């Protein structure tokens, strides 16, 4: 009886348990894994993809799908870098440019999916491809280099000894967690994703909610692009390859439903960490990189499988 109850309780936390287990295994295999330095390193590396995954999560919850973040990262990074050369513009300009680029992409995604009624997979596949082209066009296929100190410090400084990326990630998480759980808009996102017709009949403006969600996700991807260009000290048109899939994977591993209406940001964080820890850990125990991809893919499927099994019990 008690065991049954224990299982019931823990089943909710399936993914957390899987994550902890993974960490334990890696700590045993490599003594270096569980050190402050490595943990900070992992967190630092997960931050940018984590910020983007927050956007992907809210899009998924609203019943949509966004394949464009990776391309937005590239466009926004290149555009921002153009305004990031030493002694030209104040730092607020490249920041605004990056975020505005993301917002614009998001607006197109949102309008075409909601008002245009085109399936999100198609729309965002299109904007992803367009974005990749625009990124190359915006810099003639050449990386944008020669960035200002201030620009570089956006992603490469520390506050009270904590890398700034980690702090930014924590802030983004906190803000969006608040939006999703404590604001009316957040409630609307879940409702629209859960049942569009019922939401419409209940008086929600479904289209504007969807557009807003895509715009937020775009803005986050644009911001992520800015940070990535700062971190790598270059605005690269091929940056962010595959980020959209990592972001979606993080959300789904964390329990967000691909059919909408269900999901939690805390889960997404765990999902993103899981992906990062797997690569980090496999590096650490010297698994060759070809194998890493195979192992990573398998662990993602396994994690979601365990999670779904524990959910559907009863």
């Amino acid at each position, binding site marked *: 009886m008690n065991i049954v109850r224990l299982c*019931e309780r823990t089943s909710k936390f399936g993914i957390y348990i899987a994550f902890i287990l993974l960490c334990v295994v890696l700590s045993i295999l490599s003594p270096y894994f569980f050190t402050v330095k490595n943990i900070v390193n992992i967190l630092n590396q997960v931050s940018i993809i984590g910020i983007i995954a927050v956007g992907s999560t809210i899009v998924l919850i609203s019943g949509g799908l966004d394949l464009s973040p990776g391309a937005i990262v590239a466009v926004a990074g290149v555009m921002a870098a153009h305004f990031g050369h030493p002694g030209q513009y104040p730092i607020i300009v490249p920041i605004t440019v990056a975020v505005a680029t993301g917002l614009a992409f998001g607006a197109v995604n949102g309008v075409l999916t909601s008002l245009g009624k085109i399936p999100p997979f198609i729309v965002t596949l299109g904007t992803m491809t367009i974005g990749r082209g625009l990124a190359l066009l915006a810099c003639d296929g050449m990386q944008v280099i020669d960035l200002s100190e201030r620009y570089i410090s956006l992603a490469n400084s520390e506050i009270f000894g904590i890398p700034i990326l980690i702090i930014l990630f924590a802030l983004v998480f906190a803000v969006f967690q608040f939006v999703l759980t*404590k*604001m*009316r*808009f957040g*409630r*609307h996102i*879940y*409702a629209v*994703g*859960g*049942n569009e*017709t*019922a*939401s*419409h*009949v*209940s*008086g*929600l*403006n479904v289209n504007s909610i969807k557009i807003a969600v895509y715009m937020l996700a775009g803005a986050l991807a644009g911001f992520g692009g800015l940070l990535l260009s700062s971190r790598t000290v270059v605005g690269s048109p091929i940056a962010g390859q595959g980020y959209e899939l990592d972001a979606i994977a993080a959300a789904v591993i964390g329990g967000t*439903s691909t059919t909408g*209406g*269900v999901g939690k940001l805390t889960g997404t964080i765990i999902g993103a960490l899981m992906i990062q820890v797997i690569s980090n850990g496999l590096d650490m125990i010297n698994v060759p990189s070809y194998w890493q991809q195979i192992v990573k893919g398998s662990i993602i499927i396994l994690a979601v499988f365990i999670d779904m099994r524990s959910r559907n019990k*009863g």
Partner: protein
Amino acid sequence: MVEKSCLLKMEGVSKSFPGVKALKDVTFTLNRGEVHVLMGENGAGKSTLMKVLAGLYNRDAGRILLNGHDVAFHSPSEAIAAGISMIHQELMPIPHLTVAENIYLGREPVTFLRTIDRRKLEAMTRELFERLHLNIDPWSIMKDLSVAEMQMVEIAKATSWNSDIIIMDEPTSAITDQEVENLFRIIRQLKNEGSGIIYISHKMDEIFEIGDIITVFRDGEYVQTCPIKGLERSRLISMMVGREIQDIFPKTECAIADTILEVKDLTLPGIFEKLSFQLHRGEILGIAGLMGAGRTELVETLFGIRKKSEGRIIKDGKAIIITSPSDAIANGFAIVSEDRKDVGLVLKMSVGRNLTLTTLKNYTFWGQFMQEKREHVSIQDQIRRLSIKTAGEGQQVSTLSGGNQQKVVIGKWLLSNPDILIMDEPTRGIDVAAKAEIHKMICSLACEGKGIILISSELPEIIGMSDRVLVMHEGQITGELGRNDFTQECIMHMATGQCLED
């Protein structure tokens, strides 16, 4: 008549869900050639027991004997193979497939190339429909059907297996008298062929007409089994709810005041044209009609769910424009829709979240920031007021019993405190006791000076509750009757389009 031999016996069946014991040690027996009615309040465990029998849920304890053999089904297909088919309370069509494909899903006739033999499929469906006197095109897409038509298709599907046992979980919740009669004819035929039928319904008249024997559950427990012949209604009700209920239609007369709503020349192309009517404060306006008469379409158009091509809506003397549900809500309208699963509820959300969905703004400051404590108080009030049976406001609404889900839809719209309340089959699937409560609530809302539009396929409900009745037939208003004039015959006459001139 086939000899009454025991077909099915369930003993000591128990089933728990997180937070509730849905079934506690219940017993149920079914004989050949018998219609066994299963009754009980909303959330008594009727559907749960049937789902255990049909292989959808695993039981925690107990035995099921089918023709004397111990069985346990782990999936619906196993149950069907053993001769048990079920009409579910919640319709489960595959929306983008055709009617014929829905019925013969997974057992489509195939040609020698293993492609679907469409001609044969059509012939099979037509034959089935003929037997059931159904007039639905086998090739229409499921999602284009009305709820009533979908229910008829589900009934057709369940009978198409030629099962020994047919479970009917509230098969008539959305269909009108005409189809009910048709269904009863089918049931009698099945009975004579020796099938056993388990019939769940909250409609007393039906039960007394079609049932042979009745079993009552209360709160997941077996109460009693007895023959229906000679059973008193009042005794049945007290068996079910543990107390007496005076009046299911506690109509209170209240002052009917000035016009609150005037609809002029409302047109929805292809469905109805130039409909005009008025609604007064304090009035309950019933709309009667047969399946496909356009009643639901009428109120959906009024509410802005469907786009009208023409027509004016005047509220309190002022012309208003409604192009979407949010306009309607802003103008004080509310609609308890017929289809709770697709239109009424967000099934993936909790009971509480569903209750406050339309009125969320009232629990915020600056329009956005949730005040969860105040929201919680409202939710708890509403759960109590409608006696919604739930393990807590956080329970996912899809796991409530059908009747309790319906109460959530009603509760959600009552919270919006509307001036004009449209109710399309509001008591669908709701038990007698709760029905009486909801009727009382509707009356007291009318007495507060609100205008109420009531659509119901149950004529007694229309007759018992309305002050005035509009009768519709094929998109037209064929009659209007005042409270002193309406009788069942009179309404039926108008609903079938035979105008009554006297």
